């Protein structure tokens, strides 16, 4: 495993004239895959641009390892896959990655070797001779990813990296990112496809209105929301009895019975689960399946966002 490098935001504020892009953000992103979640205009692209040194913070400091993000030393440690669908269109995928790699100062032979490795890792080695203007969106995304990893960065920033990639390709890219993270790489992924972030990321950072609203694992974030309403599905051959019992609980707000399923909503999940255990034992209720329907990243993000506004 290689040496790890952290990405650090220290009290970072960014103004665009009178508009505030991010507001007093402090964040440490360490090895592993971290997801940056936020709706459009929340500030996640600004955070990405600050991290890649394209923007200078109005206040505070952004560092890649010990180096200021705008320094050349930081940029050697950093790989960036932008969301912008722009290229030197006349080039082939291989030429583009090789040229971008040579801009790190590698010799031609070394750049070619690194380009080949990056293209193989992103599954583009056999299609890299196509001109970029003729490439599909998914192929262009892979080329962008290849140019970001060719120089073996220690911190990888990915802005909407899975957009336009088919499900099989997503699996491959996810596996590649997990392999990079397993090697000690710090990976920060910004995405609006929450289901993908949920599958991919070890940790999540939720950005709302230019502020970090919450950060942690999905479980940790869910625990922050114990007071939030939760939708639960309970499967039992005694569904009507189960519905009658749970509807009497004080925090239950809604119950629907459909065949063997009871779908209910509670205002207090921990109290509900405690009560349900007691009811199951008392009435010898057979419960075949019990699941929460909205504890995924989408729901967590929705709850957090609602609570912030």
């Amino acid at each position, binding site marked *: 495993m290689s040496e790890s490098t952290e990405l650090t935001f220290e009290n970072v504020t960014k103004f665009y004239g009178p508009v505030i892009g991010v507001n007093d953000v402090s964040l440490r992103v360490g090895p592993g895959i971290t997801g940056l979640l936020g709706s459009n*205009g929340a500030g996640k692209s600004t955070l990405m641009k600050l991290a*890649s040194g*394209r923007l200078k913070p109005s206040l505070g400091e952004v560092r890649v390892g010990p180096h200021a993000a705008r320094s*050349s030393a930081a940029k050697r440690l950093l790989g960036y896959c932008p969301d912008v669908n722009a290229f030197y269109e006349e080039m082939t995928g291989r030429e583009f990655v090789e040229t971008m790699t*040579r*801009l790190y*100062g590698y010799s031609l032979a070394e750049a070619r070797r690194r380009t080949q490795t990056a293209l193989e890792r992103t599954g583009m080695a056999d299609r890299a001779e196509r001109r970029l203007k003729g490439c599909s969106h998914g192929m262009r995304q892979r080329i962008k990813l290849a*140019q970001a990893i060719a120089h073996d960065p220690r911190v990888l920033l990915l802005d909407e990296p899975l957009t336009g990639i088919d499900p099989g390709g997503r699996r491959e890219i996810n596996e590649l990112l997990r392999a990079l993270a397993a090697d000690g790489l710090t990976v920060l992924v910004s995405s609006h496809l929450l289901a993908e972030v949920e599958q991919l990321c070890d940790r999540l950072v939720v950005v709302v209105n230019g502020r970090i609203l919450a950060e942690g694992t999905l479980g940790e974030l869910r625990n922050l929301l114990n007071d939030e309403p939760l939708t639960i599905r309970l499967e039992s051959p005694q569904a009507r009895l189960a519905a009658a019992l749970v509807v009497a609980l004080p925090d239950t707000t809604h119950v629907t019975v459909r065949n063997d399923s009871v779908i209910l909503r509670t205002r207090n999940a921990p109290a509900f689960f405690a009560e349900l255990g007691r009811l199951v034992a008392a009435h010898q209720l057979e419960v075949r399946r019990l699941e929460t329907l909205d504890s995924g990243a989408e729901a967590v993000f929705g709850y957090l966002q609602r609570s912030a506004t």
Partner: protein
Amino acid sequence: MRTARAFLTLWLLSFRRLFWSIGTPMLLLPIVACIMFLVRRNYGASDDPVQAFHAFSMFLLTVFASFLVPLCALAFGTAGLGGDREDRTLLFLFIRPLPRGLILLAKYFAALPLVLGFTVGSLWIFCKLAGAPGRAAFDAYLPATLYMSVAYTSLFHLFAALVRHSTVAALIYAVFMEVLLGNVPGIVKRVAVNYYGRSLMYDAGVEHGLNAPDAQWFDPYPPADARTALWAIAIGALVAAWLVFRTREYEEPT
């Protein structure tokens, strides 16, 4: 060593992209039109070499210096940096460890040989086609051509660093400042780069038969001062572009 290699890579990339850009064939059109005019006009066939030199010089002053030199500088001077800005590919350069100042210089030094190649090359072709008056004209007007080419290239790089759609801005500048204001009587024309270049050309051409201009219409700047002014424009604009490019954030809020 790594920085030098990265600089050379960017220089080569920029040079290649500029050379194969739409600007190259577009520039060939006015040059070919001038060639056709010169072949038809055939200055070398004149019985009066002094008069032939004057007539050919007037062609160079009005068409070459006032129109073609700024056009060559505009085509390559703005496209190097401006093309990356308009195509949004500049970010791929900004995330590389090459300092921003060197990115600008790589773009500048990629454009400069192309601008010089087109201006000096077309001057050479025009002079060859002009026959005897052309031989004297090439030596006389080459320094002014070089000065103007460098000054315009710097100026249009400043445009590219300042304005997103720099080609449009530079075209407006070229038409209003260089063509209109550069040709009005009085001292207003001093705002135009080609005034200083044409002053040098008048100074160099007089001894070969170019008639001194009517002072009311065009009062040439002293040659030493004109050279200084062109140097000052070239270096000043490049330094200003460098400072702007180093510090400016080329991003829009999202």
